[in-house]
């Protein structure tokens, strides 16, 4: 019997292939007779397509061309929530870089010339780039009112609380910009298709999302559509919904060409054409008593969904539920809206709406503290939620929650008190101002509300000819460690060795639908099903009399072989059922928004150079309670990577929009943190096992994206010694920081 595998940092399952260059990503695959495919895209943000000219000097008869005319009108949409996004635009162009035509040929260089030779005759229409103009319906570009979705969440009696005589009202407005996922591997697929069947291999997070989209596009029986995940070079949400579109494109070309078609975007195309994090704007009004007790929060949260609905309602939902943070507030009103603009559709990106609303809240908490004369930590300690309290959605917290303990330990690890004193002294007369700041937050694990119930995910396990257990799940390994963690969970449940378990490559012809690889759900929700399916194998073997209750690894393998020889295929499945006592009402938006939450406090130490206007993060403490940690190295790797992306979101990553198009779609001018930009990232886990997670684990993937931006900007505010409106927005670029530094210096001179 093996030592316990859970809690041990075993080597990454596919690690050796990745460090030797053997791992096969989609662009490493070739098929006989394969063509390349490219997309011809809209040059305008909004317009009506009147005609297409195929320029001279190109052998057009050799090139496969697909347009909206090749798709039955009723099938020309990417099946998702409202099915409003076409695979190819027909007459209406709704955003820059919208796909209009597809071209395929064996010669990539010819194809590029052909793409440049296509001319569109377009009647331009007025575009809409601004959240407030969209709310004002100026003009209406989607539906009747530009509104993709609105949620109104209420708890208690907000108006009465604001009317109390003993409260002060604190208002603030905060905003966040778009952010590019910037996985190092661009989006790409290879498709093989004919009239009877379609197969797509691709870099993707959610094989069954692509499967659903292809079903809608081709109207074939479900078993005639096959989606296989290739090794995937990062996703972060950027390969959640977008691969459905590119998979459809490659399949349309392959079907018409009767040859395999590979479509792999280059970096410039991936950056301008694919999804980004939703920009957001949050308005806060808070009623707080003089002792710092928050009695009411009134929050207006709006996200820019871009030109099509895609996943905006779900992103909005997570942002809404996290908008009131880890605090016990008796009276809460949140109005949340996702609006249409003429930007390319914004989409899933790690955190999924929560980093946006949490930035607003955690900046606003510091403002409230200042108004009532408390320290940022004293205000939080006064208002933290605890076990037995209810959240903004009326969710009763049944498991232990120790935010005060997490805060105190995080501040101690960061040496917060001593730093504040030291910086206050040292900043006097220095051109480099240091500061320290933090954010307190939580992140719900798994799908929101009834999501997991509706998904009803399934995981299978089977016995292999060599006596091993094979896990059959649609959850994808995209770098986060799914295959390693699933192996640990299954081997631990069965008391087997690491090598006794293998993980099937996600392939819709082989694995059941375990739901998408998103929402911090893989380890906690799907991992639990892995545990159950694995135990199902043992149960079958014991009941068949080929295995005793206690066994060694070789005995188990022998039992599997004996069963296969004497009985036949060995397979068990497990399907998700909600834990007892979990309920959610979509109408009132009340109930158990998530099965559980991870809880965290992140502390940033920054240095602001008042000459160069550069803000550097010098130290970062990330302390979180995530249930049981299954694999310490992978878990810390998730936190460190998320923190680095959060640092980018805060002070580096600025999507520059020009007429609705990303103007800096290159590594050269869209700046992400490099090895010299990241501070020491010090990760700490509090382990409180969650009873419904596998071995007590909760979700972890998105959490680290939520805290860095507000912690860093709170630290910058501390460094500057006073508030400034430039600090209400991220990314906080040097140009904006300059306004804050110069204005505060001028104000200092005036008062001196």
């Amino acid at each position: 019997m093996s030592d316990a595998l859970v809690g041990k940092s075993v080597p990454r399952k596919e690690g050796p292939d990745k460090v030797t260059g053997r791992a096969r990503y989609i662009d490493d695959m070739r098929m006989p007779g394969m063509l390349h495919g490219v997309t011809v895209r809209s040059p305008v943000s909004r317009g009506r397509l009147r005609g297409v000219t195929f320029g001279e000097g190109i052998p057009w008869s050799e090139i496969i061309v697909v347009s909206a005319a090749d798709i039955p009108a009723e099938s020309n949409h990417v099946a998702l929530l409202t099915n409003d996004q076409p695979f190819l635009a027909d007459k209406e162009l709704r955003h820059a870089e919208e796909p209009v035509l597809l071209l395929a040929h064996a010669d990539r260089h010819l194809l590029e010339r052909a793409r440049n030779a296509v001319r569109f005759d377009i009647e331009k229409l007025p575009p809409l780039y601004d959240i407030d103009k969209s709310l004002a319906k100026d003009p209406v570009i989607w539906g009747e009112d530009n509104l993709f979705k609105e949620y109104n969440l209420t708890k208690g009696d907000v108006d009465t609380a604001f009317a109390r005589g003993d409260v002060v009202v604190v208002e603030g407005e905060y905003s966040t910009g778009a952010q590019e996922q910037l996985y190092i591997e661009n989006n790409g697929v290879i498709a093989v298709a004919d009239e009877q069947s379609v197969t797509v291999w691709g870099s993707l997070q959610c094989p069954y999302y692509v499967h659903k989209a292809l079903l809608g596009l081709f109207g074939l029986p479900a078993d005639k559509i096959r989606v296989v995940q290739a090794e995937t070079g990062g996703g972060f949400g950027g390969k959640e919904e977008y691969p459905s579109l590119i998979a459809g494109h490659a399949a349309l070309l392959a079907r018409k060409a009767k040859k395999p078609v590979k479509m792999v975007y280059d970096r410039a195309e991936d950056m301008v054409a694919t999804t980004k994090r939703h920009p957001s704007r949050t308005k806060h009004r808070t009623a707080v008593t003089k002792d710092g007790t928050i009695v009411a929060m009134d929050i207006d949260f709006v996200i820019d969904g871009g030109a099509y609905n895609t996943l905006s309602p779900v992103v909005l939902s997570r942002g809404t539920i996290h908008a009131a943070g880890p605090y016990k507030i008796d009276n809460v009103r949140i109005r949340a809206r996702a609006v249409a603009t003429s930007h390319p559709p914004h989409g899933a990106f790690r955190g999924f709406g929560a980093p946006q609303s949490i930035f607003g809240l955690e900046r606003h908490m510091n403002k409230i503290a200042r108004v009532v004369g408390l320290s940022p930590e004293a205000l939080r300690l006064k208002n933290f939620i605890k076990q037995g309290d209810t959240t903004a959605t009326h969710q009763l917290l049944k498991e232990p929650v120790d935010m005060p303990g997490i805060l105190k330990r995080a501040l101690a690890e960061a040496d917060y008190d001593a730093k504040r004193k030291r910086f206050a002294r040292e900043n006097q007369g220095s051109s480099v101002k240091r500061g320290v700041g933090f954010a307190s937050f939580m992140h719900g694990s798994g799908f929101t509300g009834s999501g997991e119930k509706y998904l009803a995910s399934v995981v299978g396990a089977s016995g292999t000819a060599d006596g091993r257990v094979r896990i059959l799940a649609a959850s994808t390994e995209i770098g986060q460690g799914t295959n390693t963690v699933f192996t640990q969970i299954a081997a631990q449940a069965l008391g087997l060795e690491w090598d006794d378990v293998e993980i099937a490559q996600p392939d819709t012809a082989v694995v059941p639908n375990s739901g998408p690889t998103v929402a911090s759900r893989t380890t906690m929700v799907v991992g639990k099903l892995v545990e159950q399916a694995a135990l199902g194998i043992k149960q079958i073997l014991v009941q068949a009399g080929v295995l005793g209750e206690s066994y060694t690894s070789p005995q188990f393998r022998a039992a599997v072989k004996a069963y296969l020889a004497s009985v036949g295929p060995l397979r068990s499945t497990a399907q998700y059922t909600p834990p007892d006592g979990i309920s959610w009402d979509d109408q009132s938006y009340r109930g158990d928004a998530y099965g559980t939450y991870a809880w965290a406090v992140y502390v940033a130490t920054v240095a602001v150079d008042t000459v160069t206007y550069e803000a550097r993060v010098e130290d970062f403490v990330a302390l979180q309670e995530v249930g049981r940690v299954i694999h310490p190295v992978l878990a810390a790797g998730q936190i460190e990577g998320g923190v680095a992306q959060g640092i980018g979101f805060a002070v580096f990553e600025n999507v520059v929009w020009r007429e609705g198009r990303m103007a800096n779609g290159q590594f050269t001018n869209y700046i992400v943190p490099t090895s010299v930009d990241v501070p020491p990232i010090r990760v700490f886990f509090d382990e409180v096992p969650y009873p419904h997670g596998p071995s007590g684990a909760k979700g972890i993937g998105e959490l680290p994206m939520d805290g860095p931006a507000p912690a860093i900007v709170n630290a910058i505010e501390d460094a500057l010694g006073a508030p400034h409106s430039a600090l209400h927005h991220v990314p906080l670029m040097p140009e904006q920081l300059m306004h804050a530094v110069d204005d505060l210096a001028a104000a200092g001179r005036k008062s001196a």
Partner: protein
Amino acid sequence: MKNAVRCSVNGTPCAFTAPPMARLLDVLREEVSLTGTKEGCGEGECGACTVIMDGRIVNSCLVPALQAEGASITTIEGIAKGEVLHAVQTAFVTHGGAQCGMCTPGMVIAAVDLLERIPSPDEAQIREGLAGNICRCTGYTKIFDAVREAARLLASAA
């Protein structure tokens, strides 16, 4: 127009014809079928396509094929000795230096090059040595750990 180019890749003589401005990256991936070298950005910023050419690391997306004439090139496929991983590769696996794996070939080569130049680098030298290679998954921390571990492994083997 195509030029004949002769060079050595991972110690094996190699001949191909390519347009003079074809990218070494494409030649390695398509003509030599060594797909371990990755394209991340195509403009020399991300380092995913890093290879060693005549003892120096280069971004193969910026090297014209013609320049490979007579050169000795090492790609990620040439770093391990058969099935025996290089210390840097071993440390990347055990210390979580590889997540999605897409930056990993370039990162491993940059680390190998760093440790050949500076056998026991300090923190600043590690950061500087890897500054041409972008990783979006790890936040670099585990990569720094892996490089330190590789330096220890190499020192104890020497």
